Structure formats: structure tokens, C-alpha cells
């Protein structure tokens, strides 16, 4: 060794193992940073708690059986949520019927048919990413140009199509994640038995992944159920009466909340809070339930 190393250490190795040198200061910096991180997490959870608490507090006094079984009054101020909640359910359900099969098929293509590094799959992935990045109000404007303006009338169906476009990338992505978790020995076993690919997909792969696909779809539906912008653009002029016809204007909860809150009077606020509480409760319950099921089906798949 050419380098003449100093033989003495710059510290006393036999000193007690408490912080020496600049360590005391560094530990303070580290603890402050950790404290800030804890604080940040606390802030996020606190905001969630505050929002939920405020909605529950403001909505609970409005909530009654009457509120659930009565239609809204004419100008959205006062009344109940019967027609709007049924309208919302129909709009979202039609959206899901459109989006879920297409999303799952895309996911099957990406995981079962496309070769690794396939260009088509890459383009699809990018397309889904871009679709997810399109603001929901722009999707609303798109449907306005595509369906609502040519029809000269708001329809629940137009809202459904818009919501389907919002759900599609979410469904495709979550289904893809679950399908990837299906162990490939399952596929190879059916391949070895001479079973056709499509048969093994339908009889083996999909049933195994079903739990995950369903819960992923529930999350997407819950997300779409709260979307207001596309409905405001395409389905906001419905009279408050109960209707089961999606090809005409349909009352729905998000637009009801928005118009009632814009009324800027106590009766409107009361209606808005009641509807907000019901909507938030449904969405959060769907979320918690889906996450719980998702974790369980993942655990089942990954063993």
C-alpha cells in the first residue's frame, strides 16, 4: 500500500455508544423529518375525517324515510331523492354494462393474447392511460357533441356512455392486474391437456380471477357514480319525476346536489346535504367493501 494511512481513528472507538460528533444534530434533523411525515399523514386522514364528519353532521338531520321515498320538488329545492337515486342507479348500471365487458376483454387481450413487448399491447396501454388522463368535463363535452347536441335533448343514456368512458380504463387496468396474478401453471395445465386457449380462459382463468375483476369493477363504478361533470353537461335538465326511460332526461343525484347547493338557500342546502350523505355513504361503503374483497382475493391468488 502506497498510501500512508493515519493509524489513529478520528474518534475514540471505546467511548460509550451514545451519539458523538455531529450525530446529535443529525438525529434531530432526522426526527424532525420523520415527525413531519407523520404529521402529513395525520393531516390527510384528518381532512378525510373532517369532510366525512361535516357531511354526516349536516346530512343526518335531513335524512328520513320521507326523504328517501319522495321525489325532489320542482326546482331541486326541498323534497327527497327517490327519482334521482333511481335515475343515478340506472345511468351508472348502463355505463357499467358497457364498460365492464369491454374493459375485461381488453385486459384479457393484454394478458392472454398479446406477446410480451407487443406493439399493439403497448399502444393499447398508452391509449388507456391517455383516456384516463382526459378530464371528465371534456368527456362530457365529447358526448355532448356526439349524442346530446344531435339529439337536441338531454338523456340518461348519454350520461351512461360518458360514465362508461370514465370507467373503461379503470376496469381494464384492475382486471389486468388480477389476471396477471393468475398462476401460469393453471394455464399451462389446460394447455397440456389440449384444451383450447379460449376455453381455458373462460373455464379456468376468468373464474379464478372473477373475485378480483368484480371488486375492481365495483371500485370503478363507485368512482363513476360520483362523477358530476359529464351528467351536468348531458343530463341536467330532467324534471324531478321518477322515470325508468334512459333515453330521455333522467334526474340524478350528482346534478341534484349541485343545483340544490347552487340555490344558495337553506332549503336547497338541506336537500343537498341529505343527498350528499346518501351518495357518500354508498360510495364509501362500496370502496371499503371492494378493498376488503380485493385484498382477500389477492391473498387467495398469491397464496
Amino acid at each position: 500500500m502506497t498510501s500512508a494511512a493515519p493509524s489513529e481513528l478520528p474518534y475514540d472507538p471505546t467511548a460509550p455508544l451514545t451519539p458523538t460528533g455531529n450525530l446529535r444534530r443529525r438525529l434531530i434533523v432526522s426526527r424532525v423529518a420523520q415527525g413531519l411525515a407523520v404529521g402529513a399523514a395525520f393531516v390527510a386522514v384528518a381532512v378525510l375525517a373532517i369532510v366525512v364528519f361535516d357531511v354526516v353532521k349536516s346530512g343526518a338531520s335531513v335524512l328520513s324515510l320521507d326523504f328517501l321515498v319522495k321525489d325532489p320538488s320542482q326546482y331541486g329545492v326541498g323534497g327527497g331523492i327517490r327519482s334521482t337515486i333511481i335515475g343515478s342507479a340506472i345511468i351508472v348500471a348502463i355505463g357499467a354494462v358497457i364498460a365492464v365487458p369491454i374493459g375485461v376483454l381488453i385486459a384479457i387481450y393484454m394478458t392472454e393474447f398479446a406477446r410480451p413487448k407487443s406493439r399493439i399491447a403497448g399502444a393499447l396501454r398508452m391509449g388507456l392511460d391517455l383516456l384516463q388522463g382526459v378530464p371528465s368535463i371534456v368527456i362530457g363535452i365529447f358526448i355532448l357533441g356526439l349524442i346530446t347536441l344531435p339529439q337536441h335533448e338531454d338523456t340518461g343514456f348519454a350520461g351512461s356512455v360518458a360514465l362508461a368512458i370514465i370507467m373503461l380504463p379503470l376496469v381494464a387496468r384492475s382486471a389486468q392486474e388480477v389476471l396477471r396474478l393468475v398462476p401460469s401453471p393453471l394455464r399451462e395445465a389446460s394447455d397440456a391437456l389440449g384444451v383450447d386457449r379460449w376455453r381455458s380462459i373462460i373455464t379456468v382463468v376468468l373464474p379464478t380471477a372473477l373475485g378480483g375483476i368484480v371488486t375492481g369493477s365495483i371500485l370503478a363504478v363507485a368512482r363513476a357514480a360520483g362523477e358530476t361533470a359529464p351528467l351536468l353537461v348531458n343530463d341536467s335538465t330532467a324534471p324531478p319525476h321518477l322515470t325508468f326511460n334512459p333515453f330521455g332526461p333522467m334526474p340524478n343525484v350528482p346534478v341534484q346536489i349541485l343545483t340544490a347547493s347552487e340555490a344558495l338557500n337553506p332549503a336547497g342546502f338541506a336537500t343537498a346535504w341529505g343527498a350528499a350523505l346518501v351518495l357518500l355513504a354508498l360510495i364509501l361503503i362500496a370502496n371499503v367493501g371492494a378493498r376488503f374483497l380485493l385484498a382477500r382475493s389477492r391473498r387467495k391468488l398469491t397464496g
Partner: protein
Amino acid sequence: MTERDPDVTGTVPNQDVVPRQRIQTTAAVPVPAPPPQIAGARPEPARATVFDIKDMTVFYGTKKALDWTTLKIYRNLVTAVIGPSGCGKSTFIRSLNRMNDSIPGFRLDGQVLYHGHDIYAGATNRVEVRRRIGMVFQRPNPFPKSIYDNVAWAPRNLGLKSNLDERVERALRSATLWGEVKDRLKVSALSLSGGQQQRLCIARAIAVEPDVLLLDEPASALDPVATASIEDLMHELKNRYTIVIVTHNMQQAARVADRTAFFSLDPHEHVGTLVEYDDTNVIFSHPADTRTRDYVTGRFG
């Protein structure tokens, strides 16, 4: 294991180790080591003790990983830890600078005294422990930074910023890497070969001038040429550092180590156990325990 000699304890010349016999009913209270002059022929090395490990027992959750380890590690020697896989070698060495703390369920009973201070005492700060007891791991793990920054990072943290270039050069020279990298210090460390990366990790560790260097199978992922250069390096380094090296390669232990500890897996409880600890030439030429003899002669493991 059928030819186990039951009376090994009586013949152990060097009582750093109290091998625990399964038949020994008083095992819970290990016999304190008698003065080392007993053997007469080979006196205890007149070295300062760096680690005085007493009855170290390690658990992961409810599973016991290492049993009743008692030994001393001496200053400026290379101490090798050998044994079959799963015998607790890594657990042992990682317990010396508290790298196991982050493993869920880790618990250590007994004492690990470092210059007389308990490493696991409440007042002990583990960052301070690691500042004095550095470690190099099995797989080279350079940071995704430049070669220079890999070495300079820890000194900067410690506030050793004066003559940083000189410090980096000295560390790289000590790790016999300087000649290969001096013209490309700003290049990413990930561009180096595996052997170079491992020497960089050693340079990184000695740049902060630790008192002890722990090497956890440092050559296991390397080719023979790189391994040879790491071994050469160890001979250089032991003048300045106390080195503990875990290796699954017996020839390596024989080549580089002054003292060797042999760990084995208790066949009944599947717990790592220290079998024998002595000068390296004793372990390899006439070990006291038949299990050690079986292992070093290749009859086992």
C-alpha cells in the same frame, strides 16, 4: 453425526467457546471461560478485545435462529465465521451492528459488548454503532450515484468534509480500486464490474474510518479473480481494522483468517449453534470437535 465424540469439551484447549452439549443439563448457566493459559503451548493472543459476546441468542418471532453464542473477537485480526448454510452465520454477523433490527420479530437475548459497551443497551444509538462498525454485504450494493459520490456520501453525512477528495482517494486506494477508476470518478458506479462494485462498497465502508469491518460473504457473488483481489485486500486492511468475515468457502477462511468460528445447525432443533472457535490453523488442522472435523474435511456440509 453418528461418530460424535461425547467428550469434546474436556479437550478444548482454548476456552473462548463453551460448546453447549445437548446432554449437558446445566447448559442454562454456561461455565465462565477459564484463563487461557491452560493450553500452555499456544497462549491467548495478547490482543485487545473488541467484541465480548455473551450468551447471544437470537429469535425471529417465535423461531430461534441462533443459540447461546459466547465468544470474543480481537483487535486487528481477521475473524472468519464458517458453517453450512442456515447455521446462523449471517444472523450472527448482522447482530454485531444491529442490522437485524429492521427485521420484524427480531429479538436478541444475552449481551454483545463492544469495547465494554452493550450494543443493545437502551442508551446505545444504532446509528453511532454502525458508524464505528461498518458492513459490506453479500451482493454488491453501490448507490445509483457516481463512483466519487458513493465513497463521499457517508463522510459528507458525518461532516468529514475537509480534504474530501483526499479521503475518497485514500479509501479507493485502500480498496485497490484507485488505479481502475481514477479517470472516471464521475461515472455511475453501476457501470463497474461486480468485483469492482464490491471493492467500491469496501472503499465506501472504510471512507468513514470505522473501527470494525463486517463482511457478510463479500466474495460469494464474484468470480475467482475478483475473489482473489478481495482476499488480498483483507490482508492489507487488517493492519488498520478489526475484520469479521462470514464465508461459506473454507479455503477462503483458511487463507485470510487468523481466527475461525465454526457454526453448525443443530440437527434436532434446527437452530444455529457455535461449535468451535479457535485459531484458524487449529480449526483446520486438528479441530477439537468431530463436527468441525467433518465439516472442514468435507465429510459434512
